[in-house]
């Protein structure tokens, strides 16, 4: 995995903790070199500080997202400001607010690394959208839709139980792996991003429906 952080002490400390968990860690200390480091090491997860010298963290996030669906977890010192939403909108999957505990960080990273073990061949359908679970592929009609793993998981969670309305808290638990209540903005931003990819008209969604005051559900098959 790749850690992009300008604070070398923190980057080293993160390295120590994650290596202790048996992960392979490479470190990049500024934004301008982040993309090269990413191409170099091909990590399974990117840990990205939002405040970086050189290229801004949001920009790095966009650059990486432009060429890969790799899970990106932001490190932020300002969880209560618009920075988080900006980061999520730039393509980050999740965030960890400073100061975090090592366990919290490990849990976040593990949740992003987790893969459903050898899924059954399964074909799900919401309206015009078909989901090939084993092949990790989504099509709208005949056109392939490129989703990040997180967006795929989100769509899958909704599609597996089309009769159920998912509250944001439940989605946080199932898709992001949070055990306690967390920031529901994560869900809002990712639902919007998912809609922009799978809906014909994101303003009038028919695949991911909003249930006012409760949460989201899959559209009719």
């Amino acid at each position: 995995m790749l850690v992009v952080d300008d604070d070398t002490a923190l980057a080293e400390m993160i390295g120590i903790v994650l290596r202790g968990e048996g992960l392979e860690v490479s470190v990049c200390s500024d934004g301008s070199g982040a993309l090269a480091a990413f191409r170099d090491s091909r990590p399974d997860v990117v840990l990205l500080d939002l405040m970086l010298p050189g290229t801004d963290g949001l920009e790095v996030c966009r650059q990486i997202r432009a060429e890969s669906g790799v899970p990106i977890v932001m490190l932020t010192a300002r969880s209560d400001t618009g920075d988080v939403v900006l980061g999520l909108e730039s393509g980050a999957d999740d965030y960890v607010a400073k100061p975090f505990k090592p366990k919290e960080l490990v849990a976040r990273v593990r949740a992003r690394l987790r893969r459903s073990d050898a899924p059954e061949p399964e074909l799900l359908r919401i309206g015009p959208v078909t989901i090939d679970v084993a092949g990790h592929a989504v099509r709208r009609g005949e056109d392939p839709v490129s989703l990040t793993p997180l967006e795929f998981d989100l769509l899958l969670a909704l599609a597996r139980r089309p009769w159920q309305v998912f509250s944001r808290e439940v989605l946080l638990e199932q898709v992001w792996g949070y055990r306690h209540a967390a920031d529901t903005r994560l869900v809002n931003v990712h639902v919007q991003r998912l809609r922009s990819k799978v809906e014909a008209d994101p303003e009038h969604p028919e695949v991911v429906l909003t249930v006012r005051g409760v949460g989201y559900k899959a559209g009719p098959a």
Partner: protein
Amino acid sequence: MLRGAGARSRPASALSRLRRAWRRSLQLRVVAATVALGLLTVSAAGAYLAQEISQQLFDSRRDQALVEAARGATDAQDRLDAFDAATADEVQDQTRVLLSQLEGVGPDRDRSVLLLLPPDNRNPAAIGDVYRPGTAVLPSRVPEDLRERVREDAGQRYRSIAVAQGGSTSPALAVGQMVDVPIAGDYELYFVFDLSREQATLDAVQRVLLLGAAALVVLVGAVAAVVTRQVVQPVRQAAGVAQRLASGALDERMPERGEDDLARLARSFNAMAGSLQQQIRRLEDLGTLQQRFVSDVSHELRTPLTTIRMAGEVLHEARGSFEPAVGRSAELLATQVDRFEALLADLLEISRYDAGAAALDPELLDLGALVRRVVDQTAPVVSRPGSSSVLVSVPEEDCSAEVDRRRVERILRNLVVNAVEHGEGRPVRVAVGVDDGAVAVRVRDEGVGLTPAQAARVFDRFWRADPARARSIGGTGLGLAISREDALLHGGALEVAGEPGRGATFLLTLPRTAGEPLTSRPLALAGAEAATRG
């Protein structure tokens, strides 16, 4: 009935509108005062003029009348003396002719002439009163006092009288003099001059005066209106601009035209607005600077703190392999880093409130469920053997309200933790109440309690009722201060009451619609205790 009410209220409302306009419009008051003063002046002048003119008219007519009457009387006496009558009847006939000659003929005839018998003339040959038949002036019209004065001496005497003429009366002047009638003896000769033509002139003059006065008053009123408008208009404009300035449109200015007093007013007003704007801008800049500072501090402190914390945790995990003293040090490091972090978080939250940067993020939530969850999550964390249990009572009604989940959870957590820590092992009761406008949560413990002086200070920053005791329990000392700010941000209230040795009660009341003012209290701070204890 409706119409009746409307008809009744309309004049009242018109009156009140007029009263309000009177109170509020300087222009109306100035115009009214000017018109009133103008009216007074013009009527005084008009009255004087009318009086003077009528006097002049009368005087000149009187002088003329007296001259004519004197000439007439002399003429009459000469002719009477020249009578060649032998009997009373002849005298009477010739007198009639004389009178009609004296009166004149034609439409220009403006006088009546009467020859009246004085009561003291006992001459048996007297011919009685002589006058033209059909005349408007009957002998009875000549007043008795004039007749007495005429009889007293030989000269001319006169008096104004009123003469009836076709239903109306017109003014007239009666001039009398004694004459000597042959055979019949002394007689009173009266010339009664008709003044109706003079009266008509006077009427016309008065009409013109009245019209002129009315026109003058209207003109004066209009001039006053125009002049005050010129002065009041800029004042009104200034008031409008000031109002817009006050409501935040700091770029508003008055137009500056010319160099008169009003232009000076506009200029100083604009100068004032300019300096105000500058001050406000500076304060705003300071506020932004403060917010930036807070935000930067947050970032700068949090990054090293994260490293410290991770290092501490790593050491803490490995403390089993250390010597006891080092192991304990690692433990202390870990717990104190937690405390440091909590303190930092609270400090940042408070400074965010101080900078006015705290924003509400409301969503519709069921307060009952929220209370239950907070109690379920919090109570186990703080409970130790023998500590207070928490009893929750939630009404069956819908307790949903638009609240900021993070902030309300923080308030509830603070209150519950606080109550359990101070509860002395006796139960803590949490009650939720709801009505149309508000929801309330009351947390009551039966522990050490508070004096009123302490209750007044619990929301102060870093304040502790008993420093030695509270520090061992922990907490940053900012929890209740933040909770209070959180409640106020919702437009709600957080209140406290207590009694030493009998416990403390905290009451959180929040409006059900975010931003609405609180109008009701679903739960009371004190009083319901006996009932709940039941």
